[in-house]
């Protein structure tokens, strides 16, 4: 398995899955933080007036927004599961030795949690 992580981190080839796990963890972490900022702003609209708040909430309910919500769910689920993997590596002696298997475990659990969620979230777009 080979991949280049570009940019400042670039010019180094990952060999072990650890680097993919870490890069994805960073990416999803930044994504979740970005959403959190937006979410704080739209929730703060309630201080300005209920109309503005309702308008912002209506925007979220547009079909156009749904894929982004699915992406957010993916980011949160991956970040949470890999966070547990990292915590295990920190606290449990021996976890470092099986870190790649733990990563596969993260991927399996991710599929189990994410695919049904995505199905439930996207279905209303196609079935009326």
């Amino acid at each position: 398995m080979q991949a280049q992580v570009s940019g400042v981190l670039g010019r180094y080839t990952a060999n072990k899955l650890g680097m993919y796990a870490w890069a994805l963890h960073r990416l999803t972490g930044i994504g979740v933080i970005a959403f959190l900022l937006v979410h704080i702003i739209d929730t703060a609209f309630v201080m300005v007036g209920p109309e503005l708040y309702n308008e912002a909430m209506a925007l979220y309910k547009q079909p156009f927004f749904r894929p982004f919500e699915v992406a957010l769910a993916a980011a949160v689920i991956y970040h949470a599961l890999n966070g547990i993997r990292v915590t295990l590596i920190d606290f449990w002696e021996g976890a470092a030795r099986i870190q790649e298997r733990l990563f596969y475990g993260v991927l399996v659990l991710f599929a189990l949690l994410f695919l049904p969620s995505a199905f439930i979230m996207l279905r209303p777009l196609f079935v009326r």
Partner: protein
Amino acid sequence: MQVTLRIQRFDPERDEKPHFEEYQADVEPTDRLLDALNYVKWYVDGSLAYRRSCAHGICGSDAMRVNGRNRLACKVLVRDLGNPITVAPMLSFQLIKDLVVDMEPFFAKYRALKPYLIADDPPPEKERLQSPVDRERYEDTTKCILCACCTTSCPPFWANGDFYGPAAIVNAHRFIFDSRDHGADERLATLNERNGIWRCRTVFNCTEACPRGIKVTEAMEDVKRALMLRNI
């Protein structure tokens, strides 16, 4: 066989930034990358600069990025590297010339974590005895040759050069977990600071890069647990 080497060149007196140049080398498949570099230096372009000393994977001089991964040039065979072979200096350190980087900051961090025996008890008549079980505790981290393959493969170190980095911590580990040593507390206090062990993000590049097969990330985790759980 003929191999093409894509080597990063940089002459501080002429070049503003590094660039790649291609060379042909006539080598045996069982030759090491170092032999191919020697071929280029001796028969093609004598101005090529790289470090090497023992050429047998012990001195740790010829660490470089080979096809994007940190390797010792004397420990990889040409036949395992494909064609062309891309050779570049280690990341994060100041370039001196071609494949030679300034290792002084690396050694400064190594020294900062006190890689020597600290024992305040009076010296015994003969040697300080240690049981095989106690010796086994830090066996893995005695193997380090300070080549910097691990430290320069570490993304947190690329992002922040003030991080002590895996190599310095591996060598601290060697003494922290030595039953004859009494300096664990001062080393751990340093490692608990801002640029200490907590910069480790368990990327595992260091473990993959180590030419001595040290389980570097495991050693880092040992140190983290020593700080969290106070179990040395």
